[in-house]
């Protein structure tokens, strides 16, 4: 399935907090969401590898559960990558604005 997760967090530099113009309450920082997701992805990947191994060695014969576990890992990874890509876009846009 997937390659081991490279330290992606290194690519993401935290955006300096900018005071919300309307004085809205502090929300969740997107980079925290991303870090949480990376943890989820690691967990899901481990579960997928374990499920595949259990099936291959005959410990499990539930092919459906195995496929579900693997698909969950795949979707979690896709979500994390999408969040990361949006975050990068936002960061780059802010960088441009600072010129």
């Amino acid at each position: 399935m997937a390659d081991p997760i490279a330290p992606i967090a290194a690519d993401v530099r935290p955006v300096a907090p900018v005071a919300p113009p309307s004085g809205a309450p502090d929300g969740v920082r997107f980079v925290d969401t991303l870090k949480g997701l990376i943890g989820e992805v690691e967990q899901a990947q481990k579960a997928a590898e374990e499920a595949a191994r259990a099936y291959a060695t005959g410990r499990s014969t539930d092919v459906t559960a195995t496929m579900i576990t693997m698909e969950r890992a795949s979707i979690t990874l896709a979500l994390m990558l999408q969040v990361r890509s949006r975050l990068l876009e936002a960061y780059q846009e802010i960088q441009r604005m600072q010129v």
Partner: protein
Amino acid sequence: MPHGALSISASALSAQRTRLNVIAENLANANTTRTEAGGPYHRRVVRLESEAPPFASLLPGEPQLRGVRVGAVTAVPETRRQYMPGHPDADPEGYVEMPNVNPVLEMAEMMAATRAYEANVTAIQALKGMAQKALELGR
């Protein structure tokens, strides 16, 4: 890779096929009055019994599911006397010792064994269908 249900169904295919072979042998020898061992052919019957399939994973607390095997193939000692005075194996009174094979009964047995064989094939196909469907997840 051992799959419990698969080996159970496979064991039944094997057992029913043996049963069909024995029935076929009975039918082929329905009129055999002289075997190599001397004397008429004796009808053979198959006795089935449950068996634990090999390599089946036994989860703690889960009862072992059992397949089936041929326990024994025994020859039935009974024969029947038929009045056939011209027969080369007729005794002085004109009776021949014939195998106790009733073709109608054997045919009924053959149909039952065939139906059982096909039912186990259906079970395997159903399992295969479920596995293939599961493999579609994510496509």
